[in-house]
């Protein structure tokens, strides 16, 4: 079975802190994604990566950056956390040739 893990289930950070959210997949998937989930808005794409060191902006990249130094790991970075980044963050991965994405358990981030 495909396994996608995220470093934390819950995270509380202070405004202005640098925050790292880590995602690791164990199925050698080429594509990895970061989504943000907010009530009434569904899931929105922040960034995705289709290969090591490659990245593409999604719909809401402002305030975020990403890093993919190894194929299995995709990090989401909040350079200076703000309260409007309080949200649920979901990581997903997929094969380059497949449409189906596999999701991690999510990280609920609270910025105070």
């Amino acid at each position, binding site marked *: 079975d495909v396994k996608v893990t995220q470093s934390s289930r819950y995270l509380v950070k202070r405004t202005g802190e640098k925050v790292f959210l880590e995602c690791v997949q164990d199925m050698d998937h080429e*594509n990895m*994604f970061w*989504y943000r989930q907010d009530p*009434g*808005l*569904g*899931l*929105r*794409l922040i960034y*995705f990566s*289709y290969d090591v060191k490659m990245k593409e902006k*999604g719909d809401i990249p402002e305030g975020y950056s990403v890093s993919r130094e190894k194929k299995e790991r995709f990090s989401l970075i909040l350079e200076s956390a703000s309260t409007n980044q309080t949200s*649920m963050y*979901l990581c*997903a991965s997929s094969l*380059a*040739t497949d*449409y*189906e*994405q596999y*999701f991690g*358990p*999510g990280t*609920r981030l609270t910025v105070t």
Partner: protein
Amino acid sequence: AQTVTQSQPEMSVQEAETVTLSCTYDTSESDYYLFWYKQPPSRQMILVIRQEAYKQQNATENRFSVNFQKAAKSFSLKISDSQLGDAAMYFCAYSEAGTALIFGKGTTLSVSS
């Protein structure tokens, strides 16, 4: 740009009954996939069912089936013999090859005994 619309923020059903969740989408592409994902309180997104656009036959997975109307750009999910464990948020999603999913805003399904 492609969009996905779920017009029912909340739905309810009684155990053993059938419920249908609606989804419409907009695209000019001919090759794409559609999905229904379930997100229970545990927050883990679980794939319920997928439909390839080039297939005319509607997908089915046990108690879950879809009504795919390509010309109308409609993709509804029917849950038969509803169970308490079906209570969750359901997301309709659209994807083209190698791209990110585009999600609807979700429908919260409650199941009563």
